[in-house]
């Protein structure tokens, strides 16, 4: 497949929240979405030199949203996240991020979006979701 350049407008993010029972699409309230995966690597100094061992993976999904608390049509994404974080804090939810023709599938723990902001600002909020086991499937 030839190289194609994509922008943030080509991202698609959905999260299946138990509070709504269905996959919620974030594209209309989401200003940015970034999935980061890092290896937790131990460096061991030996007589023969350095040895590297990855012991764990950590991943986070960082999302910047426009605050849509009062929205009923479509249903508020911020409200759904808040409900999930307060009612199901330890339940991992399926998330799917499509970027550059690839689909990244993983489970996240819910986080409540911070509320409010500056007087002159359009209210946005940043949420960082922990990815369960740092496991991401790419297809």
């Amino acid at each position, binding site marked *: 497949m030839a190289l194609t350049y994509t922008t*943030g*407008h080509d991202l*698609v993010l959905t999260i299946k929240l138990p509070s709504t029972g269905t996959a919620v699409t974030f594209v209309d309230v*989401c200003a940015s979405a970034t999935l980061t995966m890092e290896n937790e690597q131990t460096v061991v100094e030996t007589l023969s030199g350095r040895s590297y061992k990855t012991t764990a993976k950590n991943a986070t999904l960082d999302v910047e949203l426009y605050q849509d608390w009062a929205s009923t049509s479509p249903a508020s994404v911020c409200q759904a996240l808040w409900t999930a974080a307060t009612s199901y804090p330890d339940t991992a939810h399926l998330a799917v991020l499509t970027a550059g023709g690839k689909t990244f599938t993983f489970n996240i723990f819910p986080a409540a979006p911070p509320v409010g902001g500056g007087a002159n600002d359009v209210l946005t909020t940043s949420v960082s979701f922990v990815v369960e086991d740092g496991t991401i499937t790419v297809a």
Partner: protein
Amino acid sequence: MSAFSESRKALAESLEGIGYLVYPYPAETMQVPSIVLVPNSPYLEPITISRNVFQQNFKVTLMVAMNDNQAALLNLEDLIEKFMDVLPSNIKIDSISQPSVTQVGPSNVLAVDASVYTQLVKE
């Protein structure tokens, strides 16, 4: 009619509620006091990762006659207050510029530019 046109029309109708003339474009000759509503730059900004949600920016110029400096400023401040009172709740004020003297046709007017915006979902 597109969501953008409807939004612009709704803003123009709200401004007409002040009772002064509202020009949808800068005309060659304009009566004062009056209001000129034009698209600002950038006019439309996509703000989410979808291509459906936009910030629509307008420039609203408020003008009064410049016969006497002090009276003109008082009249302009009255007009600014009326302008703020009739703005629909979905229209946000970004800023209002310093008053300046501008020549419109043969006469001088005292004017400010108000930058306002709204956010809407494209149909």
